[in-house]
């Protein structure tokens, strides 16, 4: 392999790396893709089991994957083992770094919520004066969203909501249950818009790089994928200052190897990409690399209510069920007193509240649970987190992973802006439930630790100036022109929308630019 020269070396096979390969190979560019994980045959890797057949009856082995709240005893083996690839943080500032190392990356498991950003995100500073604008606007990215959505087969409803631009959707024509009509009307009276959930349908059981991007790239004959390649560092030619390849270790043998290429594309996931650049000691003349880490805070099961008319299975057909998405509605035309930006609501009816919400036990508890089965309302709050310079990652040389590579130290916490926003969200939801005549069982405004949403963003941000950003508006390093970083680390702000569509659109746009520069001989 060391003898073969590729045009572009892509690190990471998830959404961003997959889209780079998809775009570049179709233009005849020879790509080599490295991923730290193996290809997985899902039919062989998963078996049907009852919880009682597992060693810990479904509770999971105590202490395993303590940061991965999404982990269960069933899926524990799909996540990166924290003992194999550790990271550090102050115990008082927990961070949940949730990772996957397989061909396809996290795109194998994402929730598929597929939204566009608007200029409320791209030009956020213009709107409220905080932080920085992106170096691009919505109109720059819209043509790429237009191409990404048909590939991922996004289902949604076009509602003309300014802060959540419509896309190229498979039109969702489903109706609303009576309960949902009531909730939507109560929200509308308070100026809160609603739309159908926007979801990547994909094909078969996946909407992943694994089945939607990589097969097309491989079919061109221009893509070579090397699995189980743990990249240690990007190497730079001292005479030219350009990146010329990577040093990597084979996952199982730990044998060290080198691969080279004309252009290096990093799409290893937000924090792994930044870790790689920091460990390589490159692309940081600005001093900004590692800073401005942000995500979206999540409050799941934020408000639990029971819809009285649906108790005891009495709901007639079409009365309850389904859900919706209420995009950010705060700080658009008006200004809140104690927080900037806003939050989105992912809500549903027809579920069954967990037993913990009922102040009962024994047979009385079982009776209450049975009565409320299928009569519940639940909502997840997803709030924008302000990017801050002191929210950062750095290399902790004192700790290394299983391949001897220094790990990340993460330093971040939520602050008053997020806490005040969360309080507003819960008060709003409780008000809506009361307006609908529903019985609120419980509500809380405590969010999970940073990282939980698996929407880590920033730390390698793009910008207008090499003094205050790592990348230019084409996801290209200001310092090393043949180095591109195409994943969520390039974000300037994160909004309250799930970021995957924006990552895909940015990667496609950067790859288009890259191909053109290569064609012109500028790369």
């Amino acid at each position, binding site marked *: 392999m060391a003898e073969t020269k590729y045009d572009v070396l892509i690190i990471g096979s998830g959404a961003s790396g997959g889209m780079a390969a998809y775009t570049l190979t179709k233009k005849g560019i020879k790509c080599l893709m490295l991923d730290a994980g*193996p290809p997985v045959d899902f039919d062989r890797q998963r078996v049907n089991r*009852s919880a009682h057949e597992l060693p810990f009856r479904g509770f999971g082995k*105590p202490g395993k994957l303590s940061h991965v709240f999404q982990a269960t005893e*069933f899926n524990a083996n799909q996540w990166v083992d924290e003992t194999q690839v550790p990271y550090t943080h102050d115990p008082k500032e927990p961070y949940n770094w949730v990772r996957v190392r397989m061909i396809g990356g996290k795109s194998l498991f994402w929730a598929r919520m597929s939204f566009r950003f608007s200029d409320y995100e791209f030009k956020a500073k213009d709107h409220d004066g905080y932080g920085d604008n992106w170096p691009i606007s919505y109109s720059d990215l819209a043509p790429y969203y237009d191409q990404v959505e048909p590939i991922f087969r996004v289902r949604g409803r076009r509602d003309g909501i300014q802060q959540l631009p419509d896309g190229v959707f498979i039109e969702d024509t489903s109706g609303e249950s009576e309960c949902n009509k009531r909730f939507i009307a109560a929200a509308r009276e308070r100026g809160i818009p609603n739309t159908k959930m926007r979801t990547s349908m994909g094909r078969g059981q996946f909407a992943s790089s694994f089945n939607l991007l990589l097969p097309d790239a491989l079919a061109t004959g221009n893509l070579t994928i090397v699995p189980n390649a743990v990249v240690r560092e990007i190497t730079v030619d001292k005479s030219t200052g350009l990146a010329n390849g990577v040093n990597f270790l084979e996952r199982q043998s730990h044998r060290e190897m080198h691969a080279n290429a004309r252009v290096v594309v990093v799409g290893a996931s937000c924090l792994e990409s930044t870790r790689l650049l920091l460990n390589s000691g490159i692309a940081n003349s600005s001093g900004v690399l590692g800073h401005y880490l942000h995500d979206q805070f999540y409050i799941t099961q934020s408000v639990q209510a029971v819809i009285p008319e649906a108790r005891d299975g009495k709901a007639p057909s079409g009365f309850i069920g389904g859900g919706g998405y209420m995009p950010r509605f705060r700080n658009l035309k008006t200004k809140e007193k104690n927080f900037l930006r806003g939050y989105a609501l992912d809500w549903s009816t027809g579920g069954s509240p967990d037993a913990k*919400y*009922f102040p009962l036990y024994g047979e009385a508890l079982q009776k209450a649970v049975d009565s409320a*089965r299928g009569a519940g309302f639940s909502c997840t709050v997803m709030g924008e987190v302000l990017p801050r310079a002191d929210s950062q990652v750095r290399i902790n040389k004192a700790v290394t992973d299983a391949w001897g590579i220094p790990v990340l130290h993460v330093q971040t916490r939520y602050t008053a802006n997020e806490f005040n926003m969360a309080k507003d969200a819960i008060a709003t939801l409780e008000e809506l439930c009361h307006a609908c005549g529903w019985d609120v069982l*419980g509500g809380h405004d*405590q969010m999970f630790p940073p990282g939980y949403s698996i929407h880590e963003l920033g730390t390698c941000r793009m910008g207008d100036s090499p003094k205050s950003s790592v990348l230019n508006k084409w996801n290209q390093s200001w310092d090393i022109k043949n180095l591109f970083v195409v994943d969520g680390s390039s974000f300037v702000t994160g909004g309250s929308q799930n970021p995957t569509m924006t990552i895909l659109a940015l990667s496609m746009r950067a790859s288009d630019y890259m191909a053109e520069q290569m064609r012109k001989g500028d790369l």
Partner: protein
Amino acid sequence: MNGVPGALEAKAPEFLDFLLSQSSAERQQLYRNGLDGLNAQARRRFTRPFAEVEASQAGMLLAPLRERWTYDAPSDPVAAMLRAAKDDVRRASLNSREWNLAAAAGRARGGGAGLYWLPID
């Protein structure tokens, strides 16, 4: 309970003994302090340990379980243990072999099952 296995039939106590033996010192302490406190309350009010009190007396001692749910666990050690035990006992019961059989026979609903990921080589 109407054909649905209760916690004792589901062998939840035996399983939770095992689970707690494998759990963190913090979790073990939560149960230890809570159970000590519960027994102390039972002795003080009814002159016998919790396991030997009448059902109506047990109902009085389990009053914290009739409090409205809050996100943060109660600061009182007994209330905190009871809250944890309520979740653990119920889950251990629903995920038991006995519940699984009852569900298969149409006598119970739910029960844990799913696709299990084998270890990746």
